[in-house]
């Protein structure tokens, strides 16, 4: 099948108005806010070397924070601010999606605007500033009529740089709940859908180029005193904004929002939940690619209405428990604790997605390893890889303690690449997920945990506080409870990891319902 006849291009295109519109809105809002803050600061500090140096130092430090981290940092910060305003003024706001993304991106845009603004203003021939004074201009008139116009080319270059950075970095705002062209990239990377990854990259690159060219047109127009060019550039930007507003005007309430974390199983399950709600006549959309630290807060705050989490994850991350209880007891405790926050634990889906130590079946047999206890004897000559959070999670500490595990080396990896890495021998052992379809695909084995160091990770369905008494919602979801066993989920995940049209989360969700619905 040729690359271009792939039906996933059509699927990607269908998402474009939504993703592009949100991307443009958050980028331009961030840029506007960044300019509104940075330009006055550049003007105010142009003759004050000390504050200028401090300002530039701060902006440079902000720039060194990776975009993903900066965006992620704003979420807890705003959650805190929202709880403060709620306590003091009785009003709260959503710390999810647009606001944190816009603020973080605005901060990100400041360095080039500040630096070029200050350079541009300081680079003006002092004789001209003297001349401005000499012909009778006030300081303000000198700024507006002489200094700013002369600094304009350098300032515009900074604004263009900022625009390109912001549009590029906005793709990273997906995990904090802001829909963007990054949704293609995150979803594509997680589900091995390279069409989506390419589409997202090209779309954001084209958008950045287009905005850069339009700003260039405005810059050229201002520089050559050509009203036509300036107007054309400004009209282009305005048209871009207007075009992105159209889809939102037409779209009424989003209805129920189904959240999903950033891995394939979650994409599939959120598509399944959305389909079930829609089948029950409830309007629903999926908001996928949310960071695992963001998603629970988003549910609690009502920014999303439901999602699937795992009992062990909540046990450790939300209840901050380090003890390990039997499966049923842990679920009961969890349900009680969540109820205090008005979160409904509707029930289990029927499978567990736990961490497991995984290695190739042949190697395990050759070494006579069947359990983690057997592995401990060989660990000192082996390397282990885990996802980005595994080695800082309590399970890892518990495993090390229970079995006296000590590996030669440990590495962090993108979860999708771990299985191939262990299969090819690049690492010896990985901390994989029990429901992952790749375990079967690569002929790997998940080791038993006889000392129960790893807590149970039942997939559970959570509902937001505002949906606590929503009978129609709960009735639509109940048919799923207890119906998805580990074998079915593994197969669904394996399908989702393929790189063809049948491997999209929507297609896999339909397949999954076909299997589950019969039961």
């Amino acid at each position, binding site marked *: 099948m040729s690359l271009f006849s792939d039906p996933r291009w059509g699927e990607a295109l269908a998402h474009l108005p939504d993703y592009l519109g949100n991307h443009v809105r958050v980028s331009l809002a961030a840029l506007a806010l960044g300019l509104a803050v940075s330009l006055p600061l550049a003007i105010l500090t142009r003759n004050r070397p000390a504050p200028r140096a401090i300002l530039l130092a701060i902006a440079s430090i902000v720039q060194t924070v990776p975009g993903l981290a900066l965006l992620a940092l704003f979420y807890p910060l705003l959650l805190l601010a929202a709880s403060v305003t709620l306590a003091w003024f009785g009003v709260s706001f959503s710390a999810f999606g647009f606001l944190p993304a816009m603020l973080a991106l605005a901060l990100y845009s400041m360095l080039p605007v500040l630096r070029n603004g200050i350079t541009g203003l300081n680079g003006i021939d002092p*004789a*001209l500033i*003297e*001349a*401005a*004074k*000499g*012909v*009778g*201009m*006030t300081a303000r*008139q000198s700024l507006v*009529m*002489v200094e700013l*116009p*002369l600094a304009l080319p350098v300032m515009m270059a900074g604004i263009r740089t900022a625009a390109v950075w912001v549009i590029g970095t906005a793709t990273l705002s997906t995990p904090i709940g802001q829909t963007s062209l990054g949704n293609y990239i995150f979803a594509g990377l997680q589900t091995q859908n390279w069409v989506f990854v390419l589409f997202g990259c090209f779309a954001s690159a084209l958008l950045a180029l287009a905005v850069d060219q339009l700003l260039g047109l405005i810059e050229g127009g201002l520089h050559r*005193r050509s009203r036509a060019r300036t107007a054309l550039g400004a009209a282009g930007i305005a048209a871009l904004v207007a075009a992105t507003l159209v889809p939102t005007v037409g779209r009424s309430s989003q209805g129920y929002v189904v959240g999903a974390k950033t891995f394939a199983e979650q994409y599939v399950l959120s598509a399944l939940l959305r389909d079930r709600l829609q089948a029950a006549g409830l309007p629903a959309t999926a908001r996928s690619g949310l960071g695992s630290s963001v998603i629970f807060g988003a549910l609690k705050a009502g920014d999303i209405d439901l999602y699937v989490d795992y009992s062990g994850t909540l046990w450790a991350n939300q209840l901050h428990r380090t003890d390990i209880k039997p499966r049923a007891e842990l679920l009961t405790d969890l349900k009680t604790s969540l109820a205090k926050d008005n979160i409904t634990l509707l029930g289990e889906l029927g499978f567990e997605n736990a961490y497991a130590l995984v290695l190739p079946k042949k190697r395990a047999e050759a070494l006579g390893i069947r359990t983690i206890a057997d592995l401990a004897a060989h660990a000192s000559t082996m390397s282990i890889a885990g996802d980005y959070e595994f080695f800082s999670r309590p399970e890892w500490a518990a495993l090390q303690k229970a079995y006296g595990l000590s590996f030669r080396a440990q590495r962090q990896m993108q979860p999708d690449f771990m299985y191939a890495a262990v299969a090819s021998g690049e690492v010896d052992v990985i901390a994989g997920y029990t429901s992952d379809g790749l375990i079967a695909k690569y002929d790997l084995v998940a080791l038993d945990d006889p000392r129960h160091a790893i807590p149970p990770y039942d997939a559970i369905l959570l509902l937001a506080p505002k949906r606590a008494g929503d009978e129609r919602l709960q009735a639509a979801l109940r048919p799923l409870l207890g119906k998805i066993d580990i074998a079915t989920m593994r197969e669904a995940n394996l399908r989702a990891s393929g790189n063809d049209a049948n491997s999209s989360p929507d297609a896999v969700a339909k397949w999954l319902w076909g299997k589950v619905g019969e039961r």
Partner: protein
Amino acid sequence: MPSKLAISYQHVTKSFGPLKAVDDLSLDIAEGEFVAIVGGSGSGKTTLLRLANRLIEVDGGIITIEGENVQSVDPVALRRRIGYVFQSGGLFPHLSVADNIGITPKLLGEPAADIAARVDELLGLVQLDRNAHRSRLPEALSGGQRQRVGVARALAARPRIVLMDEPFGALDPLTRDALGDDYRSLHRKLGLTTVMITHDMTEAILLADRIAVMRSGKLLAQGTPAELSNSSDAYVLELLRTPRRQVERLNALLPQSGAA
């Protein structure tokens, strides 16, 4: 009967750190006079000029413009009523010739139509072609044309006093000569008071009514060229000797001919 004073410096001092740029200097300039201030670099002559329209503030002493102490006048209003010609033009590179010339009337809030008419009149006065030059940017002008625009800009708000900071220094000799002559006739025609800074004694002798010689912030001598030649100051005499020696050498080197 001495005419009224246009500018008066009384015991004026100005220091930049340890350097005394202007040192207890007194000088009166009558209305309608053309005074040249001559001195080497670092003599304080530019500082003296800038003190008059408060581009620089005095440390001590009093400066009056048309009888008013400059310290009691709003500096912006003061600068709008005094024409100032900058060294090498000081034209705003992003503004057209017409916008450069019309800048001070615009700041004073004059109607656009009046400004346009005034710009055309001034282009004529400084002998630039209206239609060819009005909408050009300064970068498209020659050095001499730029300085003509600089003069036109200084005259735009009909000032009675014009300050000129080495206005013709960077020009080629022919342009310089023509521009000097043209300005001299404008000065007379418009009844201006002009203070011009120059390091060139020949230019000062040819254009000014009166010459003030500065050195190290002090006024060494002042008077008409003839009066200066009676000075007992060695530096002043040395300054005057240069043009004279040049004339003698030129006369010796160039054959006298009636071809001119």
